[in-house]
């Protein structure tokens, strides 16, 4: 419970900052002010300024927006496609459809999201959309596998047999009985993939395969800081710590949710 609250609070801070950046940031992230460049943290720039004189608080807030948006949409893609595939595979367990879905999964697993991003970038050029697609594609087999695994054990349970005796079709049983019972697991997996997505987005942006200038993103801020951090360490510390804290928050939240939602653990508590 403590992990859930602490993690949720940490993640909420960055989500709130990202949302706030849609309407307000302390200073314009597009405005270059060379006279004010590389200011250490202080007043009025609480976290200092970067090599173009942009306010680091504003940059971090806008960067949060990109990171969170990319990771969130990628989780959406993974869930939206992976969960139905996993349900279908489990419903057809052992059949050709199951086999086809699982082999497809294995194939996608052979392409780490960075490799997908490299391929897409090589062909279409770099963009934040690439990052979303690359991370999203990698999420599909993750959700498909988690869903299938949990659904398979549910299919052997007697309440599913009872539903079949009640004449319900596999599709309907999947939606009515299986899905609600794997939902907890999917929520937990969703937070994990969300945090992995933030890490992946940062990595892709860092090597230039993600968001392109002038869109601020944490990964690119780190890439730009690389040649300067010896004399302006805040350039590397601010976005780096933002990533660490967001991911930490999401992971704590995931762990907390799992403990909270797991009926076995709840029974012990009750």
């Amino acid at each position, binding site marked *: 419970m403590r992990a859930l609250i602490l993690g949720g609070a940490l993640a909420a801070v960055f989500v709130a900052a990202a949302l706030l950046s849609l309407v307000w940031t302390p200073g314009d992230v597009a405005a270059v002010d060379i006279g004010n460049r590389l200011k250490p943290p202080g007043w009025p720039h609480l976290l200092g300024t970067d090599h173009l004189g942009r306010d680091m608080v504003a940059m971090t807030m806008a960067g949060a927006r990109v990171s969170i948006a990319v990771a969130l949409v990628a989780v959406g893609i993974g869930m939206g496609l992976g969960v139905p595939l996993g349900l279908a595979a489990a419903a057809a367990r052992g059949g050709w459809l199951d086999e086809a879905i699982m082999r497809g999964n294995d194939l996608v697993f052979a392409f780490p999201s960075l490799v997908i991003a490299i391929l897409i970038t090589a062909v279409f050029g770099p963009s934040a959309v690439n990052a979303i697609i690359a991370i999203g594609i990698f999420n599909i087999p993750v959700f498909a596998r988690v869903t299938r695994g949990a659904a398979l054990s549910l299919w052997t349970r007697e*309440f599913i047999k*009872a539903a079949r005796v009640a*004449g319900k079709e596999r599709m309907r049983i999947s939606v009515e009985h299986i899905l609600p*019972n794997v939902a907890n697991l999917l929520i937990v997996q969703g937070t994990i993939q969300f945090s992995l997505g933030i890490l992946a987005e940062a990595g892709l942006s860092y090597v230039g395969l993600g968001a392109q200038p002038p869109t601020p993103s944490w990964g690119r801020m780190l890439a730009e800081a690389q040649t300067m951090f010896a004399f302006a360490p805040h350039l590397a510390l601010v976005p780096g710590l933002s990533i660490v804290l967001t991911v930490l928050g999401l992971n704590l939240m995931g762990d907390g949710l799992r403990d909270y939602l797991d*009926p076995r653990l709840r029974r012990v508590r009750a």
Partner: protein
Amino acid sequence: MSLLSVRGLDLSIHGTPILRDVALSVAPGQILGVIGESGSGKSMTALSILGLLPPGARRAGTIDLRGRDLSALSERAMTRVRGAEIGMIFQEPMTALNPLQTIGAQVAETLRLHDRLSARAAAEAARAALDRVGLPEPEFPLSRYPHELSGGQRQRVVIAMAIARRPRLLIADEPTTALDVTTQAQILNLIRRLVVEDGMGAIFITHDLAVVADLADSVAIMRDGAVVEHGPTAQVFAQRRHAYTRALFAASAHQPTRRSRGRGAPLLQVEDVTRRYAGKPAVDGVGFSLHRGESLGLVGESGCGKSTLSRAILGLEPLQGGRIALDGTAIDAPHVPRATRAKMQVVFQDPYGSFNPRHQVARLVAEPLHLQADPPRGAARAQAVHAALQAVGLRAADADKYIHEFSGGQRQRIAIARALILRPALIVLDEAVSALDVQVRAQILDLLAELSDSHDLAYLFISHDLHVVRRITDRVLVMRAGRIVEEGATYAVFETPRHAYTKALLRAVPRLPEHAA
């Protein structure tokens, strides 16, 4: 003089009291039967003696083994007692062995650990132990892995491990509960033989009075963490001094009252049904019929094909040959007309796994209504749910609860309510009372008897438990290796079995002494 004497044993786990003032004694060469329902504390008593309690456990009292108080020993000293002076057999042979190690290595480990035997000497001793428990070479070399053995064979390996070092005390916790009845009889014989040969004392924990009736020299009956009665078996069984002992006996022998049926019109017809898996027949040319209002038993050991047959009847399993018809309409999985499905419902074994934990009882019970062309809604639906709940002895208010709020017996009642709501002609009871404690089981059997009268229900009662089948069915089918080997009126089959397999089954069933002296 006693080998083991437990006095004033108290146990609590995380502050919850589990055992209260338990006192037991075991003499050398004798077997103590410890009997109790689930939650009575019988397993925890065994683990207390071994000192293998879960985290958060606090134990008080003395556990005297040959003049030494085990409760005062350090954990280090206890490791020299376990396996050497006390051998332990657990219930579930399928998971009790390390799947990655050969049986030889696992039996030898006991010996290497305590006697520092060389690998060669330990292997020889392990060989001897496996021979003693009836796993001889060349069929059972030391190099076998657990997954290559049947449940009964694995339990023999566990026993070999327990007795390899000829301990003074053997503790067996429901060692035959997961086994078939003929296997159970063999394992019981084996344990009895080993106790006599080695002059061990033994504690045999069970929920089944009949199992210890022939086996144990003395018994202790436990309830809610306390021993309510302890004494020589013949005396306890004959006198039944304690009210709880009498209640247990009454429930074990309980005979529900039920009008015996003449034959009505045929309801279910099974003709020459065959179902194969990977070329091997699981059900092989089975045929029988079940009549309206009749209660038909289907008995057999695990793997005999009775589950496959029941799934086929329920339209969950396609056939490779033959025909199943309910009320004249063919059941040809997966295409079963809704009206036909509606005439047949099912109650499963596991009172915990039979319900979607996320739905309220009303929705659980109402699920089969979906088979009706025009399912009732709103108040009519609630009315149907309430009627079904009341028919099984629950309250209408229970409809708004979730399944985890009910006990195992209540859950089975809800499962029956779900089966009843469509007023079917046939209910398939698939080991429906096997997971219940004896007193609850008696109540559910009464309920089933009553419902079959009031609702004119036919039952297909599938069970491995011959006692239960005898009490609730009119006719019985005996199944073995995918075939029906004997069929007849229940009393006739039980009194004068014709087929050798039926005879063997009936011989293997442990019996309670009929009457109190």
